[in-house]
């Protein structure tokens, strides 16, 4: 069964190719075909999962080598897949949530003239994402990594005739590429030290046996982290994610919430052995995650575009995952990754319903009281938002509280306090679109309509996931189900019990979440607070929040404008100096050759005279010499 693991990405690729080459003839069948391709992957993934579960813990890692990809000199790398609890978890998330989002997109994209192209890209994305999580070496992972970046580029720019979409797509690709190129260096560095890129070689026992200096491990880890930070939209490479919302909403749900942006978390978790060899690497992960979580939560509060608010929310949640990984709680990071995939996909797709019902309106100020006309969507959004906020016993409660509490139990009190603030802000920012869109007063024109059944059906599954995923996977008794499943790959986190007792922490977490949602209701739904006046009364603060602390402006000042000026001057230098020298030499030769023709008078007899004189001189010289 494990040998057939290649079928999972292959099916997705087949779907992509079918849609790409014969999609035009299939018409409306394109969407269902794409959905089936991904769904089949999910079924295969489940079969492999059962196979995996039937074998004892230590024997749950299987490497399936397909062929040697390329080799030169000492270097060699294979196309090989790795089946282990970690990769199969990711496979199930990608194909499961992916299939649901595909199914949703069938309805969402029904007015698109070329759904086949859309589904081709979407299938292609799933293919690359599966390669990324199944790869058994860093280079194949990198192939998937860049491949998902490409699909992200194609899908953000799907409506490329809108200049904003085209620019956002390019920005996303280039920003992540900055991280990716650092990651590529990290991969090269791994090869230089280990002589291999295979996970079995690099992440096995050899890492701990002083194969490289600690400095080398730090360099490798930080370079890999740079890639992860770019892909997962963490500070300082996060600027592309809010802009990426220019893409169709299913894309935002699948790529920019549930799967691709969590690839960075996967990379850190997968490479944790390397990170642990360095004293600096994991603390850096922790700090980046924590700062990103707080930063993005604040920025989300400033957004009036519902999708941008959700985008910052995604960034904040991934910040939590990095935070967890930075503390060594890899299973905590994975638990949040899985739960987040459910409720964030649910939130995005419901936002899609809203946009669908309101003729592509995304501004929260022109929504309000949608629960009357879109009652079902209101239910979905409430579930998603409350789950994210961490209201017990929904999924977010288990996943996020697990991480926040781990900070305390592992003795990181300062981090715990900051994380608690981030958790509070999370609950606050997510209650904002909930109350602004679905509660309060009606501020939109015309009528809204709720989505058709085909778009609700996938949401049912996601909503159930958003409710029970935490209970099923993360309930903390002897360590959650997911934790025990992942243990062979990730090891068990140290069970220190410092700080406050667990029960107290749970209570604090719940109170914070419920308090924040209540505060949110008071501000945005009770009608007692004039929230619309906030930007007028506090223009400075509102500006900082809505512009996400002007990081974009800062980058423009630091990089884009000087970079453009520099490039322009280099071009001038190339034209004037480098090429100028060449042309100058040519002109000098030309000038010199205007002097020579003076001798050429055109009079034959003059030539003859010169000839004679010349001959005479020659004779004279010869005569003198002999």
């Amino acid at each position: 069964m494990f040998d057939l693991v290649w079928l999972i990405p292959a099916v997705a690729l087949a779907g992509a190719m079918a849609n790409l080459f014969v999609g035009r003839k299939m018409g409306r069948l394109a969407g269902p075909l794409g959905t089936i391709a991904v769904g089949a992957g999910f079924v295969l993934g489940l079969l492999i999962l059962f196979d995996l579960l039937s074998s004892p813990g230590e024997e749950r890692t299987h490497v399936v080598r397909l062929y040697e990809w390329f080799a030169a000199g000492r270097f060699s790398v294979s196309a090989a897949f790795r089946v282990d609890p970690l990769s199969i978890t990711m496979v199930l998330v990608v194909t499961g949530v992916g299939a649901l989002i595909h199914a949703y997109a069938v309805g969402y994209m029904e007015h698109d003239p070329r759904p086949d192209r859309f589904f081709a890209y979407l299938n292609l994305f799933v293919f690359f994402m599966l390669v990324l999580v199944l790869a058994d070496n860093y280079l194949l992972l990198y192939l998937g990594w860049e491949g998902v970046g490409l699909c992200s580029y194609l899908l953000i720019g799907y409506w490329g005739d809108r200049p904003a979409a085209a620019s956002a797509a390019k920005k996303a690709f280039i920003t992540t590429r900055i991280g990716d190129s650092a990651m590529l260096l990290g991969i090269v560095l791994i090869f230089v030290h280990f002589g291999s890129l295979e996970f079995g070689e690099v992440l096995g026992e050899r890492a701990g046996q002083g194969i490289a200096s600690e400095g080398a491990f730090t360099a490798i880890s930080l370079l890999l982290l740079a890639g992860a930070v770019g892909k997962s939209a963490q500070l300082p490479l996060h600027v592309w994610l809010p802009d990426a919302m220019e893409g169709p909403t299913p894309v935002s749900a699948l790529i920019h919430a549930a799967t691709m942006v969590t690839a960075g978390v996967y990379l850190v978790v997968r490479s944790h052995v390397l990170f642990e060899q360095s004293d600096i690497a994991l603390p850096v992960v922790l700090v980046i995650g924590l700062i990103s979580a707080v930063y993005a939560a604040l920025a989300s509060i400033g957004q009036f575009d519902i999708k941008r608010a959700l985008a910052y929310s995604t960034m904040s949640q991934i910040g939590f995952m990095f935070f967890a990984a930075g503390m060594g709680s890899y299973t905590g990071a994975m638990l949040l990754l899985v739960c987040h995939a459910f409720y964030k996909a649910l939130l995005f797709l419901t936002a899609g319903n809203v946009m669908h019902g309101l003729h592509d309106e995304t501004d929260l100020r022109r929504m309000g009281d949608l629960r009357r006309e879109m009652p079902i969507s209101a239910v979905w959004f409430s579930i998603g938002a409350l789950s994210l906020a961490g209201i017990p016993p929904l999924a977010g409660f288990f996943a996020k509280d697990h991480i926040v509490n781990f900070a305390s139990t592992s003795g990181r009190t300062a981090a715990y306090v900051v994380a608690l603030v981030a958790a509070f802000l999370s609950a606050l920012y997510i209650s904002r679109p909930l109350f602004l869109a679905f509660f309060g007063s009606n501020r939109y024109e015309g009528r809204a309509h709720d989505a058709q059944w085909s778009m609700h059906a996938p949401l049912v599954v996601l909503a159930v996931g958003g409710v029970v995923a935490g209970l099923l996977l993360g309930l903390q008794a002897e360590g959650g189900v997911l934790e025990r499943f992942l243990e062979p790959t990730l090891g068990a986190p140290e069970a220190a019990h410092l700080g406050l007792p667990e029960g107290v922490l749970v209570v604090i977490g719940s109170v914070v979440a419920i308090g924040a949602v209540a505060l949110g209701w008071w501000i945005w739904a009770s009608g007692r607070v004039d929230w619309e006046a906030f930007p007028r009364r506090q223009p400075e603060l509102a500006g900082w929040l809505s512009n996400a602390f002007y990081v974009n402006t800062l980058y423009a000042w630091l990089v884009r404008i000087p970079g453009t000026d520099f490039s322009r001057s280099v071009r001038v230098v190339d034209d004037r100096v480098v090429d100028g020298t060449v042309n100058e030499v040519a002109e000098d030769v030309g000038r010199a050759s205007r002097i020579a023709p003076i001798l050429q008078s055109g009079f034959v007899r003059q030539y003859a005279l010169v000839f004679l004189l010349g001959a005479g001189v020659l004779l004279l010289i010869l005569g003198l010499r002999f």
Partner: protein
Amino acid sequence: MRTPIAYFLILSAALFAIGTVGVLVRRNALVIFMSVELQLNAVNVALVAFSRMHNELDGQVLAFFSMVVAAAEVVVGLAIILNVYRRRHSAIVDDVSLLRG
């Protein structure tokens, strides 16, 4: 007895000098042409004389070459002069200075 080589050389030098002066002072292309022929034949005389002096045939062979080349030259040269004359109604070389730089 043999005629001393010097006689031939003096004849050759004289012919060559006459030819040279002709080339330099005359303006008619045909006369210049004849003067060039004179120079060539002056050299031929010298070649044959040396050839006899050394008792080898190389010089004579070279003289034949030179004659053949001269004949070829006449063919081409006269054709050019004729064409120039047809166009310009003049065979004065100083009128034809189109090839100045």
